[in-house]
């Protein structure tokens, strides 16, 4: 866990680069710093391993003020991929990767194994590459080595400064996928700097959008795409991406707003009447304040019908899956598909039932779009 508390950074030339930075990067998450060039992403990152000292304020790692830890010790405990790769030209690839394990005096056997594993991970054969020098590798290959060097000592915090910027788009996506896959298993706390919004959206648990040394907005990719804080953020995300995102409807637009409901205190005969009148085979059970309690189906009612003492509340089932009004249609469909649901109720935070997404309403919505398109 990394925390910035009221951090200011002024360089010797008088330029104030960070202005009252407050930030919390959660353990086991990928936090992505993004913003235009010169906005202070690298500076912020280097505060974490004390390559740069704050002018004012504190940086805490796992609740310890890092100004109290020796920089050398701190840095050995934090993986670091620097912006311009920075491999050591006089060392072989294997030795480059092994730098921090050697500084930490690991056993040689363990180091060799680790180097081999890491080279495998980025698809560079150890037999071929281990004994080469950095100048014998392509830019993209060097960048891969720069990345695995940061993982070599299995530190729990990794700083990555534009680690994939020199890669061609295909290798970049490959490494992004690799990082996402790896992160599922190893759950490192990763700080990742990029100026590529697609990259940020793909890998981030949390995006921190910066401009001129200030945080403009932070949140999950979803939150930022959905609710850009201002025009600058919108511009930065790009119209195209926003449009793409806006094109996916929210469940609110797809649902029926008049699901057929019943109070839990009603009798079974009454429920059959309602189903008959509305031509449905199940009813949403809500309390007097419209809060969703569960549902009943025609089969349940018919099975228990003989027992006159039974009320709707006695035979209802509760829902395992509900969605929010702003859940995206693609997620809704995924959910319905995965759990074989004929419909999902849409509820607000306070459990108030606002609608129902059914297969029918989805088809209706899509046919609206397509017939609308044909008209154009």
């Amino acid at each position: 866990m990394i925390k910035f508390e009221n951090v200011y950074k002024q360089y010797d030339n008088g330029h104030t680069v960070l202005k009252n930075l407050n930030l919390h990067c959660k353990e086991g998450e990928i936090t992505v710093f993004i913003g235009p060039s010169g906005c202070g992403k690298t500076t912020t990152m280097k505060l974490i391993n004390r390559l740069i000292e704050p002018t004012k304020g504190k940086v805490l790692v796992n609740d310890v003020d890092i100004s109290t830890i020796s920089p050398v010790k701190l840095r050995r405990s934090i993986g670091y991929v620097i912006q311009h790769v920075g491999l050591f030209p006089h060392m072989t690839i294997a030795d480059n990767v092994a730098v921090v394990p050697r500084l930490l005096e690991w056993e040689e056997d363990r180091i060799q194994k680790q180097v081999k594993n890491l080279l495998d991970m980025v698809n560079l054969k150890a037999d071929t590459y281990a004994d080469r020098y950095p100048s014998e590798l392509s830019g993209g290959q060097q960048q891969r080595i720069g990345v695995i060097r940061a993982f070599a000592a299995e530190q729990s915090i990794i700083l990555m400064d534009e680690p994939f910027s020199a890669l061609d788009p295909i290798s970049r996506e490959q490494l992004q996928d690799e990082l996402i896959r790896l992160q599922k298993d190893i759950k490192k706390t990763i700080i990742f700097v990029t100026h590529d919004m697609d990259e940020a959206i793909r890998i981030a648990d949390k995006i921190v959008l910066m401009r001129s040394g200030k945080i403009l907005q932070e949140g999950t990719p979803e939150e930022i795409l959905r609710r850009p804080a201002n025009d600058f953020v919108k511009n930065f995300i790009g119209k195209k991406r926003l449009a793409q995102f806006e094109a996916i409807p929210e469940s609110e637009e797809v649902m029926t707003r008049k699901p057929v409901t019943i109070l839990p205190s009603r009798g079974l005969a009454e429920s059959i009447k309602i189903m008959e009148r509305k031509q449905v085979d199940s009813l949403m059970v809500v309390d007097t304040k419209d809060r969703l309690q569960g549902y009943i189906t025609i089969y349940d009612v018919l099975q228990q019908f003989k027992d006159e003492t039974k009320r709707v509340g006695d035979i209802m089932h509760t829902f395992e899956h509900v969605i929010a009004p702003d859940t995206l249609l693609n997620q809704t469909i995924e959910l319905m598909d995965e759990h074989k649901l004929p419909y999902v109720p849409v509820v607000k935070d306070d459990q108030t039932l606002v609608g129902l997404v059914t297969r029918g309403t989805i088809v209706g919505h899509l046919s609206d779009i397509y017939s609308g398109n044909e008209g154009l």
Partner: protein
Amino acid sequence: MDYINIFATRWKDLGSAMLEHIIISGAALLLGIIIAVPLGIYLVKTRYTWLRSVAFTITNIFQTIPSLALLAILIPLIGIGKFPAIVALFLYSLLPILRNTYSGFKSIDPSVIEAARGMGYDGRQRLFRIELPLAIPYLMSGIRLTTIYVISWATLATLIGAGGLGELIYGGLSVYDKPLIFASSITTMLLAIVIDLLLASLERLLTRQTTSREQSASS
């Protein structure tokens, strides 16, 4: 024939003159390296930029004084003999070694230095495992160049009574002994060439060692 015979008849004189020559140049160089290399490293790292210009200006001045004048000016200060000769040659060697050390360290890609800091090398480890190995080619070429200068300037040292091969050359010149002039000049040239070759192989050895040092260090 005389040109060959002279080596047979005067080999003792030639040998001892050469030894003196080596001692004078070697001592001057060694002093130069001991002072100029650390100074060069310090100048790269220091925050006080004015120190840099002061150091380069002073060493530059030594370099521009004509060699004979420098030798002469040392006589009233520290007399004659080997010691003032060594001091003069040492002052000469400072600038080229200093300049090459400085540019060797300056030539290192800043991102490499930053990577080294970021990985957690402490200052001393960074100096010996990263910076010095990377600066060695510059450093060695500075030292080689300086060595050749110093060996040739050392022939002047005889003028303040320091001996060396210069003594035989000037001796030969003063009585116009052509074989002797020939033999002593050839010896000086050969000395310079052989030493340069030795330094060249040392340079190769050093760069190879530094590239494999990391491997052997912990195995």
